[in-house]
């Protein structure tokens, strides 16, 4: 029997009738997910969904080599035996199920709140022994950043264990979307994680389109892809600057900081907002790029490329920077695979994953972008990957803007059809954004599930710190730069 025979097959950005998705008993659901994962499929989402007569489970797995998604439902249940011991990438999903539904999760190795309980009340792993000490940081940190709590078990300077407790940013995003679509939903989607407004809006709007059986206009798709790459460029260059600052290389930090602003200002020129809010809308893009703007953008991108190469040159040729970046915060390829890491963090640990190539949707079906990966899994890999990916995004954008498809920027998008199920993956700058939407008989969202790439990747920050020095924590954390708000929803 094929490992995916129980599942319903989907393409990224597609929708199916709810009735077409198999519903199996919970033990069979469990065995099927495990079998598919053993065969090399990756867990994109595992969550509880309201069904008639209680709460059922839903899983979405990805076959990255073949470009298929697989989904399966369980019958309503009150209990679920944890997969986490066999499938570590399920551990956070199961903790989420336990706290947000009436399904009790048994045999979980470390069952505690993800975001619903008061984070301060959580239990932490503790080490004891001579000269072992504990360092607690947060929720409020020293810089202008989001809140989260970090608990280190240290021996001298060496970190033995780091436990990260989030949940402070929980705003109830999924609950606000359920019952939609309404006039507020797309704005909530843009506010899931502020530096990924384009990425999340894109996943949300693609789902609305596929639920309605509509398509975005081709030019709209191209403009969305342009915005997504501009978002990637702004965040990648901003992070390179922040990492330069964390190792004390201030001129480079300042140059990168300014360069990041150039990309944000291009988004503002396009749609009036530096983070691309208001651009991605169902059916396409709400703003078009005029010919004069396209010429201006080409010139700005060429200047940005010159600046990026010059500034990155300074960073990566400096021996004292490499001394801090090399072999710091290593996440092995095996760990990355076990934890189900996605995006930049996965590619820096040698995993060959990228939604833009593996599950192309929107304009990425027509114009491809080469995937970069590095094997060393350290801070250097995550920094260098940002530089290389920025160059690829510049190539992509320069070609795209010089040759935009004609036609309208936005097509009509009717209301969603009832009784449908849609999945959309988007390769945001951090990695895979996964939105799963389901409509009830009235055509409204019965459930709306969001998985930000940070949800997959936060455990990697803890693993990167093991055996490292506590003084390297800011640099390690910045090398991932994960979203607290995207995780907490």
């Amino acid at each position, binding site marked *: 029997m094929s490992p995916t025979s129980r599942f319903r097959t989907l393409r990224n950005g597609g929708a199916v009738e709810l009735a077409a998705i198999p519903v199996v008993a919970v033990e069979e659901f469990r065995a099927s997910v495990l079998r598919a994962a053993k065969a090399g499929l990756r867990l994109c989402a595992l969550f509880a969904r309201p069904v008639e007569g209680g709460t059922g489970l839903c899983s979405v797995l990805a076959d990255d080599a073949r470009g298929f998604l697989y989904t399966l439902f369980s019958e309503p249940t009150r209990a679920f035996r944890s997969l986490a011991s066999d499938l570590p990438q399920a551990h956070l999903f199961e903790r989420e199920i336990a706290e947000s539904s009436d399904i009790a999760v048994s045999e979980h190795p470390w069952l505690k709140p993800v975001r619903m309980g008061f984070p301060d009340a959580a239990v932490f792993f503790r080490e004891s022994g001579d000269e072992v000490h504990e360092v607690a940081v947060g929720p409020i940190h020293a810089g202008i950043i*989001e809140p989260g709590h970090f608990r280190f078990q240290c021996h001298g300077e060496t970190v033995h264990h780091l436990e990260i407790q989030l949940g402070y940013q929980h705003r109830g995003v999924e609950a606000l979307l359920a019952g939609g679509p309404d006039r507020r939903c797309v704005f909530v989607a843009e506010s899931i994680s502020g530096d990924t407004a384009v990425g999340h809006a894109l996943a949300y709007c693609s789902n609305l389109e596929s639920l309605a059986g509509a398509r975005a206009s081709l030019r709209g798709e191209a403009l969305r892809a342009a915005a997504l790459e501009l978002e990637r460029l702004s965040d990648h260059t901003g992070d390179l600057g922040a990492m330069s600052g964390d190792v004390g290389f201030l001129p480079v930090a300042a140059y990168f900081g300014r360069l990041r602003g150039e990309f944000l200002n291009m988004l503002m020129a396009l749609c009036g907002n530096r983070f691309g809010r208001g651009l991605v809308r169902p059916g396409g893009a709400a703003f078009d790029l005029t010919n004069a703007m396209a010429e201006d953008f080409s010139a700005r991108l060429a200047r940005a490329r010159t600046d990026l190469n010059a500034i990155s040159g300074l960073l990566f040729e400096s021996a004292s920077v490499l001394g801090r970046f090399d072999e710091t915060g290593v996440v092995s390829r095996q760990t990355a695979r076990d934890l189900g890491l996605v995006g930049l963090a996965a590619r820096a640990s040698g995993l060959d994953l990228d939604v833009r190539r593996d599950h192309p949707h929107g304009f990425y079906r027509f114009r491809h972008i080469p995937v970069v990966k590095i094997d060393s899994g350290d801070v250097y890999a995550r920094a260098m990957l940002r530089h290389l990916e920025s160059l690829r995004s510049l190539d992509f954008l320069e070609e795209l803007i010089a040759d935009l498809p004609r036609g309208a920027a936005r097509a009509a998008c009717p209301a969603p059809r009832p009784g449908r199920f849609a999945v959309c993956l988007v390769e945001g700058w951090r990695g895979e954004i996964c939105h799963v939407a389901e409509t009830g008989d009235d055509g409204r969202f019965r459930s709306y599930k969001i998985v930000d790439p940070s949800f997959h990747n936060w455990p990697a920050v803890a693993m990167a710190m093991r055996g490292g020095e506590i003084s390297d924590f800011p640099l390690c954390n910045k090398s991932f730069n994960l979203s607290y708000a995207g995780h907490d929803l």
Partner: protein
Amino acid sequence: MWKILKTRFQQGYRTSDFPNGPSGLPERFRGRPVVSSRPCAAGCSACAESCPTQAIAISADKRVRLDLGKCLFCTECVTACPDGVIAYSADHRLAANKRSDLILSGEEARLASALDEKTRRLFGRSLKLREVCAGSCNGCEAELTVLNNVVFDLSRFGIQFVASPRHADGLVVTGPVTEHMRAALRAAYDAMPTPKIVIAVGACAVSGGPFAGSPQAHDGADSTVPVDLYIPGCPPHPLTILDGMLRLLGRLESPKDPKSVSS
């Protein structure tokens, strides 16, 4: 070393002329909305119905009122209105001292005024701020961080972000104040020595923004701490934040001066 100096030369001088230079904001930038003071001829409520945050109300005499504190600066109402009652200007100045000053109904903008003389003497030339993110999506933090870069260079105005509330004269709050951050926000406020000020940055901190009414959040900073300056926007442009802070310190004199803008 030679390469560092060469790059420094190539990068040039990047600090903006604010507050004296011209606006470098692009044509599509959406600044302060302008609401017509005449009664709405169309007589519909399309603008109010289109607004994602219920920022628009229509009075009995058909005059439109827009709450800048709830506004996400999207284009829904402008597109919906058949009568052109609402339009965006390029004016980046939005901050106000009182929540009620953010309700626009055709009259002139009621921009923030300076702190009282005594507080201004204390903070006017040196203001240390502690930022607390209480459920923000990180968009407002991004724009606050940008104030420290070479373009906006906040420290030339004597304003700095510090690591501890114990070192701070004021708190900058972002986010709608989630239930899980409420106690920490209160603790940070209490930890600051008096006199102290609070600045709410962004639609979430002013009114709850897109999360208004969520059972997990408290509709803004003033649910938990007293606020001295409201800076609307989603997120506010760095110049909008800078303008608000400098007005509070009495560093920008005339609220009517239209040229206090730059890129």
